[in-house]
């Protein structure tokens, strides 16, 4: 892949990625630490022929983005935890009506107003189920500056593939981190775009939600002669509300299956220094994601220098979790340490997929980043 070098911040990279990936609409509202995404995109999008609107609140921000996405264009909003709480209702609507959308959440300390300019990973559990009801959230988590770009691009493609909102988690550390990143060229990104499916048959045969049991809806762009109905109610193949027993069951089952039967298309992990793992005593597997993984990698280098065989498993797609691979690794390694800037939010998933309850954890919720030495000391202390 052809790459280019860029010096930027995580927030700016997310905005640049959106424009490169063909995003045409941004609806947002100022919130620390994600505001720079809106600043940058409000400069870039109009130049690229799109529109960026600052709305009157968080709810209006995502509602406008959902509306734009319904019309057929790629659409995005960016916010932080308190904003996601407000946007939850519209995320649910987008899940139910199968509207593709990208939401960038630059995480800060919570709950409520929390720690506005401090780092946290406290929204990981929220990202799994931001709104009520049965659906499967797709959540990606950038672990370095370059991924603030690449994961946003991937999110747009996944949103159009699965026809639902995709959440990209970054955090205050990455959002405000300023540095060099190697990212794909605009050309490469343009070539990687997979637009959403459309229906080309006769308009009277068009049934946007009348698809196979594990398929995503096929929503044609508006104003092309294909008529259908959007609703947050249970609906039939045409999109009209119904309470018919089988139709309702099939709809919700399909929302589940369209994601869970195709997790192979979603899974993306990084395995760092795990090549020489063979199940022997003394091996230490660290599970971490997001900006924490940067500290974990540094810690692993120090541990290796001290003769401790350590390695990192980093899920990049957090939800749905990489259950098989993560479970396999965790089961095969005796000493497992989860490092998170929250209290056990992803550890519980690691426990679930591995069936193990003896996993050690290092959790920090004071708004400060974890340093490599804290991880080194923790490993030496518990194993």
């Amino acid at each position: 892949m052809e790459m280019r070098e860029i010096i930027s911040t995580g927030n700016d990279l997310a905005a640049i990625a959106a424009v490169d990936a063909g995003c045409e609409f941004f609806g947002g509202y100022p919130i620390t630490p994600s505001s720079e995404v809106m600043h940058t995109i409000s400069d870039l999008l109009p130049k690229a022929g799109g529109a960026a609107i600052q709305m009157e609140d968080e709810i209006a921000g995502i509602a406008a983005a959902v509306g734009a996405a319904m019309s057929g264009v790629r659409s995005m909003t960016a916010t932080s935890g308190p904003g996601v709480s407000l946007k939850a209702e519209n995320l649910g609507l987008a899940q139910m009506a199968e509207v593709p959308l990208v939401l960038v959440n630059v995480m800060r300390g919570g709950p409520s107003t929390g720690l506005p300019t401090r780092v946290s990973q406290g929204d990981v559990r929220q990202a799994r189920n931001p709104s009520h009801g049965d659906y499967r959230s797709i959540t990606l988590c950038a672990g370095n500056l370059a991924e603030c770009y690449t994961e946003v691009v991937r999110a747009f493609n996944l949103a159009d593939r699965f026809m639902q909102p995709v959440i990209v988690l970054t955090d205050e550390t990455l959002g405000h981190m300023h540095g060099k990143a190697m990212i794909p060229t605009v050309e490469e990104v343009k070539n990687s775009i997979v637009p959403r499916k459309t229906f080309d048959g006769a308009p009277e045969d068009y049934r946007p939600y009348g698809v196979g049991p594990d398929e995503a809806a096929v929503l044609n762009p508006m104003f092309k002669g294909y008529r259908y109905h959007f609703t947050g109610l249970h609906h039939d193949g045409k999109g009209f509300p119904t309470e018919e027993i089988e139709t309702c069951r099939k709809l919700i089952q399909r929302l589940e299956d369209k994601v869970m039967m195709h997790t192979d298309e979603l899974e993306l992990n990084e395995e760092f220094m795990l090549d020489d793992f063979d199940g022997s005593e003394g091996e230490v597997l660290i599970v971490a994601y997001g900006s924490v993984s940067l500290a974990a990698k540094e810690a692993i280098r120090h541990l290796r220098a001290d003769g401790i065989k350590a390695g990192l498993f980093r899920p990049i797609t957090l939800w749905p979790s990489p259950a098989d691979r993560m479970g396999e690794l965790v089961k095969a390694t005796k000493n497992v340490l989860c490092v998170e800037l929250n209290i056990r939010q992803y550890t519980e998933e690691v426990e679930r997929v591995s069936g193990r309850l003896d996993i050690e954890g290092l959790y920090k919720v004071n708004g400060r980043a974890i340093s490599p030495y804290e991880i080194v000391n923790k490993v030496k202390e518990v194993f």
Partner: protein
Amino acid sequence: MAITSIKNLKEFSTNNDRFEGAHLLCPGCAHSMIVRELMNCTDDNLVIATNTGCLEVSTAVYPYTSWDTSWIHIGFENAATAAAGAEAMYKARKRKGTLKDPNAPVKFVAFGGDGSTYDIGFQWLSGAVERGHDFTYVCLDNENYANTGGQRSSATPIGSTTSTAQAGSHSYGKKEKKKDMVAIMAAHGAPYVAQLAPNKWKIMAKGFQKALETEGPCFINTVSACTTEWKFDPKDTIHITDLATDSLMFPIYEIIDGKELNILYRPKNIITVEEYLNAQGRYRHLFKPENRHVIEKIQKDVDEKWELLQRREEARV
């Protein structure tokens, strides 16, 4: 009880200090002047709710606080609602006879910036005013989201550059006019609505006293010059506010019961808006030849508004 003698500023500004000075607001920020004036113009117990914004983040950095009163902060948008809830419960407990001192005078006050008043907190404020809670809502209007990096708000005037409505080769900044919040609140039928400014501190103190003494929901829009985002020297806060009121960008007036309009300050020498705009960095680009038409438009709008206010004052409707 209102403090009746407002004689000299030094006496007034130190008489009843319930807003401590060691806060983190920018040097030259007008927020603290406005808040201190409100708290000094009454002896009554105050229950104050504050929206998220510069005022809240700068005056309550745990474990410190600037507030020698009951003080509530909930979220970005809901000071009006918090004050409404506190006021409703106060009334209920008074009725039930469970208050320790039912005759102690209590006033409910809410503070919000223009972002939380004009935008995200708009429906919450509207609801509280419509329900008729006995409280005073004070908007500290600095015409932008100063707390999150100077984005546009619906209080930002046309032509101002902000981080999300940037002036440049293709744009002269914000293209939309400022929302007329005072008229909107007057249209709710609120018993007392006013626009006040800290440079005319006696008028402002009287306005605050009137609002606090009036039963029912009162709304006051105050001009709070923002040294950081308006881009002027911190020592010039009052000077800039003078220019704002004398150019009639911020006319000072009150509306009683949604009908009776009184102009509270008539500048002896009305200056041009150009003089006001020229004093601030956020309008600098308007002085390029291609943007001159925006200044003319602003002047025209200001003239029309002043004409309207005068006619309404005369007509008493």
